């Protein structure tokens, strides 16, 4: 069974807040749900499937389903960190294709700026061995960057170009946390956080959230919105797996990306736009290689000299400013990747960054910790 053309993204909403001390996390989830429903022209009673991940308060989907008053016949709370919501689109499409639901709601929200939280879910088998090492996302991704530099000669200047491109886009986004256009030197002169990643190699921390509605073809065609089809999807999980033949320069996107392109029947060269999860600059570079936009090791040259900037570069990416400049709600950037891809395919991105005739786009993400254990999910979306 394929999900190709079996489901459409009919609603997409990014919460405008970036700091929400006055709202609860469940409240933000509900506001995002309401925003996506309004965007699609659907109501809460149309929803018969609900998807969430570990940011949703409570036990799986049960608390939020009850809080929002949903009546669903399908639920899924698969957790792969920040990539979860890209994966949820795929799982929702599978459920729709199997007839298990016809309007699937996906929500994400949280308040890491207002209410910081910790790491390491209880009982993880690796916890006694790794709980003491002081691993944060910064130094975990830093090890990946250091190894990539060691093996392929990738430079901090090349990584900085990823931030430059994101900031060039973010200047047009009124909701973006960081709207100033930065230079390569600005990135290199920002404080070192964890070698070799500077402050401006890191994404923002923001409160907020987002929601998506994945619907059956007959529902999508009954609505007044452009048709954005789910054309292909892939997912994978990777960890050090016993520590043998460790490879920090290749991510699980080397599996999820080709799987998504194979199901979609297209190639990276066919993509008009790419949403690429940018928790850090290195996250983007490794995914570009793993998805096949360039060969392994050539990502540095691929991203340099503004090649990710819409209108002038060869691959416009993260035209909302991405996690690096716009938004990284509850430290999970997958949903905003899908939302901006939907905007591009609908022709609703900011005119300064809208890709002309954008009919094929990819959204891909890495969740968890790239240097330790992570999940990857990739979607190919098509405007029909």
């Amino acid at each position, binding site marked *: 069974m394929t999900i190709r053309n079996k489901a459409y993204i009919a609603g997409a909403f990014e919460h405008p807040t970036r700091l929400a001390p006055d709202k609860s996390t469940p409240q933000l989830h509900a506001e995002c749900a309401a925003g996506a429903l309004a965007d699609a022209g659907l109501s809460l009673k149309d929803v018969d499937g609900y998807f969430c991940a570990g940011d949703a308060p409570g036990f799986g989907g049960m608390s939020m389903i009850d809080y929002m008053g949903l009546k669903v016949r399908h639920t899924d709370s698969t957790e792969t960190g920040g990539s979860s919501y890209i994966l949820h689109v795929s799982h929702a499409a599978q459920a729709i294709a199997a007839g298990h639901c016809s309007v699937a709601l996906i929500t994400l929200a949280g308040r890491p700026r207002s209410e910081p939280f910790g790491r390491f879910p209880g009982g993880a*088998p*690796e*916890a*006694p*061995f*790794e*709980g*003491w*090492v*002081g*691993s*944060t996302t*910064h*130094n*975990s991704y*830093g*090890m*990946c*960057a*250091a*190894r990539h530099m*060691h093996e392929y000669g990738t430079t901090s200047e090349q990584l900085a170009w990823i931030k430059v491109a994101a900031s060039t886009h973010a200047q047009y986004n009124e909701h973006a946390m960081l709207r100033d256009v930065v230079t390569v030197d600005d990135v290199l002169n920002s*404080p*070192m*956080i*964890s*070698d*070799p*990643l500077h402050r401006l190699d890191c994404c923002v921390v923001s409160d907020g959230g987002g929601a998506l509605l994945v619907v059956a073809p007959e529902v999508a065609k009954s609505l007044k919105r452009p048709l954005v089809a789910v054309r292909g999807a892939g997912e994978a999980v990777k960890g*050090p*797996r*016993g*520590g*043998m033949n*460790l490879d*920090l320069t290749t991510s699980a996107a080397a599996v999820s990306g080709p799987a998504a392109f194979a199901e979609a029947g297209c190639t990276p060269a066919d993509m008009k736009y790419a949403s690429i999860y940018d928790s850090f600059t290195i996250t983007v570079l490794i995914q570009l290689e793993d998805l096949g936009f360039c060969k392994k090791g050539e990502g540095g040259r691929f991203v340099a000299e503004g090649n990710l900037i819409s209108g002038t570069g060869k691959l416009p990416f993260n035209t909302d400013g991405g996690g690096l400049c716009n938004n990284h709600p509850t430290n999970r950037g997958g949903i905003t990747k899908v939302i901006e891809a939907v905007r591009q395919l609908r022709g609703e991105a900011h005119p300064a960054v809208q890709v002309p005739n954008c009919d094929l786009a990819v959204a891909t993400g890495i969740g968890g910790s790239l*240097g*330790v254990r992570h999940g990857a999910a990739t979607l190919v979306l098509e405007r029909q």
Partner: protein
Amino acid sequence: MSDPRKIPAPQPNVENQRFFDAAAQGKLLIGQCDACGQPHYYPRATCPFCFGATTWVESGGKGEIYSLSTMRRGAGAPYTLAYVTLDEGPAVLTNIATDDHDSLAIGQRVSVRFTPTEGGPPVPMFAPEGE
């Protein structure tokens, strides 16, 4: 150098208590599969390559840095997170114990140095050979 990072005590479970008992004796244990023979780290009851039963064996405690990142900000900084590839094969996620973080490099030889924790068993960090 700022205040050294406080190392939180590991919380062993019934499966891996013996790893930390050995650590308290200055021994680094790794897993070795009874079926396929491959070593692995962290050690566990079943082999992550073939699901066979395992025997936990003592490592020589020497290896080289596979990759590293020195945290420059926040409590306990600077400290260096690293993967060390043991001479037996498996890579260990660990810290490099040193006063000279800037001199560390990928490929550098290191050896295990058990380090006290906050009220728990010691943990296997690594230090440059000769330090």
